[in-house]
């Protein structure tokens, strides 16, 4: 026969909560590195152009990232859970087209908002159903719906554009809450806080991490994996709807090419923010800082009159770099240990 009897002195050891204090953890974090980069970009920009430090210019610069960042928050959760949505920019196109069509039928601003959000939610639900209900891989599904959603916009609009949005609709993309603080900036900040709480302080957020690290183990732990993933697709669709409202309001018009290529910028923002493209880890503060970095780089390029194509080359290189970087660092550390 095996086994011991337990006397109190053999009772196990008491483990400390943490190996590293949160402060020390922060000192070796990706977020801190990003913060340093953000400061460097800021300084570079202010040397590159005398106009950069002007409060109004800075305020303008935020429009380069606020709308994309709203989607990036939801996309961050989705990528942490091990899925992805490449149709977000096309959802914007479809939602904007629907709002434009509603305007032609005389819809007022509240109705337009409702239309934008509803279309976003429906698109998200469609993606979510195909992935969780049919068990298809999200990358394939959303490449498909990326063409589908924008395709519908093209069919409806051709080379025309919807204009004639009500004047109070302009507030979402052009309005200011006070001094140089735009409505979009406030919305961005509020959403950042909400998503940070959702991911880092709720049971739901914990489940998102668990699923991203081990979906089978999560299922065995009683997590309703399909339901959580479906919710994340809904959220991503909803945030694309919100972005569609802001962007349409800012541009004052809908063309089928609206927000073209944004999905890559959103994914780049998320990955630059330290979210593992394979799922399982990442943080909202990281994505927030990444949004600032990307926005300011774009603005800096604008100040220096760098053409748009260079900008997209830059985004592409950045995406490859931030995906490759963790591996290169890991390999370097492994070699140094040897």
């Amino acid at each position: 026969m095996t086994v011991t009897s337990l006397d109190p002195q053999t009772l196990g050891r008491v483990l400390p909560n943490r190996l590293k204090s949160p402060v020390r953890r922060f000192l070796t974090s990706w977020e801190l590195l990003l913060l340093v980069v953000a400061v460097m970009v800021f300084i570079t920009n202010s040397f590159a152009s005398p106009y950069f430090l002007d409060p109004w210019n800075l305020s303008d610069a935020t429009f380069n990232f606020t709308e994309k960042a709203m989607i990036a928050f939801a996309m961050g959760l989705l990528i942490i859970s091990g899925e992805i949505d490449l149709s977000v920019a096309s959802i914007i196109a479809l939602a904007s087209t629907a709002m434009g069509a509603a305007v032609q039928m005389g819809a007022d601003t509240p109705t337009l908002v409702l239309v934008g959000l509803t279309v976003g939610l429906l698109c998200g639900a469609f993606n979510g159903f195909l992935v969780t209900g049919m068990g298809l891989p999200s990358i394939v599904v959303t490449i498909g719906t990326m063409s589908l959603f924008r395709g519908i916009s093209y069919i409806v609009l051709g080379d025309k554009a919807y204009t004639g949005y009500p004047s109070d609709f302009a507030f979402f993309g052009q309005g200011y809450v006070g001094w140089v603080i735009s409505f979009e900036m406030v919305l961005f900040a509020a959403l950042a806080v909400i998503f940070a709480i959702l991911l880092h302080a709720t049971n739901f957020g914990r489940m998102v991490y668990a699923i991203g690290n081990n979906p089978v183990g999560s299922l065995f732990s009683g997590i309703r994996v399909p339901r959580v993933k479906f919710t994340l697709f809904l959220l991503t669709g909803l945030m694309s709807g919100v972005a569609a409202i802001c962007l349409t309001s800012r541009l004052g018009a809908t063309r089928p090419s609206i927000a073209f290529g944004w999905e890559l910028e959103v994914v780049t923002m998320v990955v630059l923010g330290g979210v593992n493209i394979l799922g399982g880890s990442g943080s909202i503060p990281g994505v927030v800082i990444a949004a600032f970095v990307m926005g300011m780089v774009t603005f800096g390029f604008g100040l220096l009159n760098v053409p748009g194509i260079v900008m997209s080359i830059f985004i592409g290189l950045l995406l490859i770099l931030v995906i490759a970087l963790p591996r290169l660092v890991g390999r370097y550390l492994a070699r140094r240990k040897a």
Partner: protein
Amino acid sequence: MVVLAQLQDREDVHLQSHIDGAPILSLKGISKSFPGVKALSGVDLDLYPGEVTALVGENGAGKSTIVKILTGIYQPEEGTITVSGEPLNFPTAQDAGKAGVTAIHQETVLFDELTVAENIFIGHAPRGRFGLIDKKTLRRRAKELLDRIGAQIDPDVTLKDLGIANKHLVAIARALSIDAKIVIMDEPTASLSYKEIEETYELVERLKAEGKAILFISHKFDEIFRIADRYTVFRDGEKVGAGKIADVNEQSLVKMMVGRAVDQVFPNRAPDLGEEVLKVVGYSHPTEFEDIGFSLRAGEILGFYGLVGAGRSEFMQALFGITKPSKGAIRIDGKVAVVRSPNEAIHRGIVYVPEDRGKQGAIKGLPIFQNVTLASLSQTSRKGFLKLAQEFEMAREYTQRLDLRAAALDQDIGELSGGNQQKVVIAKWLATKPRVIILDEPTKGIDIGSKAAVHEFMAELAAQGLAVIMVSSEIPEVLGMSDRVIVMREGRIVAEYEGEALTPESLVRAAAGIEEARA
């Protein structure tokens, strides 16, 4: 002719060293640290040709770490490795293979989407013309290897369709596909039932006869005394003893390993059976099990015994809502209940500690404390918001009781030793405070001291009125813990024993189909 002469030569060298008693592989002063722990500090280890050296130690003593150093996965910070008198180091796994070392790791690293044959030969597949993989030879050699270890597995099936025990056999075949002088086995029998275990022992004997040096890691003392010639004991990353197995007994080995004497009894229970909590009627599945029915009362520990492939785990997973039964019903507290998902099962008070720790149990990438609380988040949170302090408290309580060896509660569970990961998984399910707990090979890979803690815990929960189902392939555990034992074979219940009728012989015979009796 030349080849023959060389072979002859090798044989001579080998015989020579055997007579001299010189080790073929020798480690001296090996140290290895991880953040927060010194996994190994200056350990020595010698392996001799034609002999089995058992490596024993508690969970987290550093056994698997030394295996990883020997196979080029980790690099030691200090120390030397000598193979056949030649100093070597193994910067990569390939180098270790070239030096004649092969290993069956504790956590098997196989590819779910590939076939069995492809898994066995991945990285060194036989090549035909134009350097293409020679599928026919691949299949044939895979079949030969599988036959050699007595595994009845089709080399063409996809790995993910196999149960954990068969996956483990594939890993063994894979290790043997490399022609090596040194064979390392890290808990090779932990996932197997006695039939495969017997075959593993025979395999070890054959390897021994071929003159291979074998390092055998195990927490089971019966097998250590059966097959080992020598032993080495690690405690907290240090070597605390080594010698010939003939010179020690179980007590002295345990004392070296744990640092204190251990008296060996199962918890003394006086089962006080309450109402029936679970009744299963005619549970069937198209391919895995057929007409399973039994009833379970509060305070009872019901054992499930059977061979690999008997359908025990498959049935338990259906009970837990992972797979759908084709027929049958369950009653909880006398009321018909439908369980369509693990989430529903947990809500109804049925929980399942899975057998496949790596896939189904541990969430690697999440810290220890989050693994412990994952299935009980409603207890440690308020209105859906996390309460970290409560999570740490819950995790500390359970990890202390199970004597978890880790640096801190926020350490990634993936960094723990195999046995310690298992403790965290058990803690996760005990923390849910269930009504019915199904434990599938609960003490797999757990050391002797902690095993006692787990058994004690089970007995205490049963005394509090929890109903326990324990699937186990370890006969002493089944006999020592269960009030009643159901034996399954080929997806059916073939026998049920309690009291006097419950003997090792009766279990083995029923499981193997030598006798069919429902006592």
